[in-house]
């Protein structure tokens, strides 16, 4: 019988053989070398034994026990700066997009400042014209609203009903109460939420 060609199989060769990816020339050596065959059989037996190890699971209710200690994030909470930076730098594309947006914002702000400094008289004239126009528009709107209100059929009755000072006092008290209630409601809405804890599924 011809001796096996080439050197004995290395550890990497045995790995390749176990994965079914042994090079043909090395495979030829393995076919003819009893020493390597014995080693390969041993490796295969060990891998088969490891592969046949029993499946194991934690005791029932494991997920519930884990979830009791997990704080779920509030989807509406603001992301921290660290988290934001991590997302921005997550991929080269995201980082390039963020850099482009930053350059556009800074560039347009710089251009705006430079133009303003060079055209101060134009800006002052534009500001004056805008102020006058806004004042006129506001005055027209106020007059229009007031005349519309006075022309309403219920206006006279409302005015006569508020002639007595006691009625003004009641109206003021009602408005103050509504204001206080509004402030309390707003405070409750703006209060920071406590971290939500997962609940146990039955």
């Amino acid at each position, binding site marked *: 019988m011809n001796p096996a060609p080439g050197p004995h199989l290395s550890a990497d060769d045995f790995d390749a053989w176990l994965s079914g990816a042994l090079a043909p020339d090395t495979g030829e050596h393995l076919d003819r070398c009893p020493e390597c065959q014995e080693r390969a059989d041993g490796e295969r037996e*060990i891998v088969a034994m*490891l592969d046949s190890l029993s499946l194991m699971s934690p005791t029932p209710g*494991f997920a519930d026990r*884990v979830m009791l200690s997990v704080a779920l994030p509030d989807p509406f909470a603001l992301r921290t700066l660290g988290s934001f930076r991590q997302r921005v730098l997550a991929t080269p594309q995201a980082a390039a997009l963020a850099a482009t947006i930053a350059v556009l914002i800074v560039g347009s702000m710089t251009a705006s400042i430079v133009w303003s400094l060079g055209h101060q008289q134009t800006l002052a004239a534009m500001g004056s014209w805008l102020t006058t126009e806004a004042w006129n528009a506001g005055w027209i709107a106020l007059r229009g609203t007031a005349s519309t209100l006075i022309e309403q059929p219920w206006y006279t009755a409302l005015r006569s009903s508020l002639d007595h000072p006691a009625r003004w006092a009641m109206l003021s008290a009602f408005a103050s109460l509504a204001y206080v209630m509004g402030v309390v409601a707003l405070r409750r809405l703006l209060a920071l939420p406590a971290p939500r804890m997962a609940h146990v599924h039955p």
Partner: protein
Amino acid sequence: MASTPEWASLTDQQVVLLARGGRETAYRELIRRYERPIFALLFRMVRDRELAEDLSQETFVKALNAIDSYRPEFKFSSWIFKIANNAAIDHLRRRELDTLSLDGSPHAETPEAMQATALQIGARQESPLDAVEAKELGGAIEVAIGRLRPEYRSCILLRHVEGRAYEEIAEILNLPLGTVKTYIHRARNELRLLLAHLKE
């Protein structure tokens, strides 16, 4: 109300994104996907069922509470296995366990506690005879794995029980690829020697 996604069709990364949005069901899906492999790895690392369950719980709580720090360009499995392996190695450094008890934790003081912490063979086998044979064979290999150095144990379990690629094992264990290969070869050699008596 948000619709229920088809979990099976989602990748780990997609499930993580849903979890980051505060969906409890996404957290539970991640636990469902990894509770068995993480528990099995930890059990075979620390050789105590009760302790393995505590470490598994610690692993998931740590990972899920830090889900925002997970970087999606890496595999979620690598990330959670790394946390689990670190938990096991930390424990083994703190406390040495020399003997494997298939009948229960070496720290169990009553028969009930030993029963509760005993290794529970799964449902791969059918008949009682098969179960006994499998327990004997499985017991021998479990004992042999328990005698390996912890770093060999992590490598061999991740490679041949969990089926992870060498590159992923290197990432999980924070070791060079060559070192991982060497550890796996040495672990297989040691197992072959430790199990040689079964062939006689």
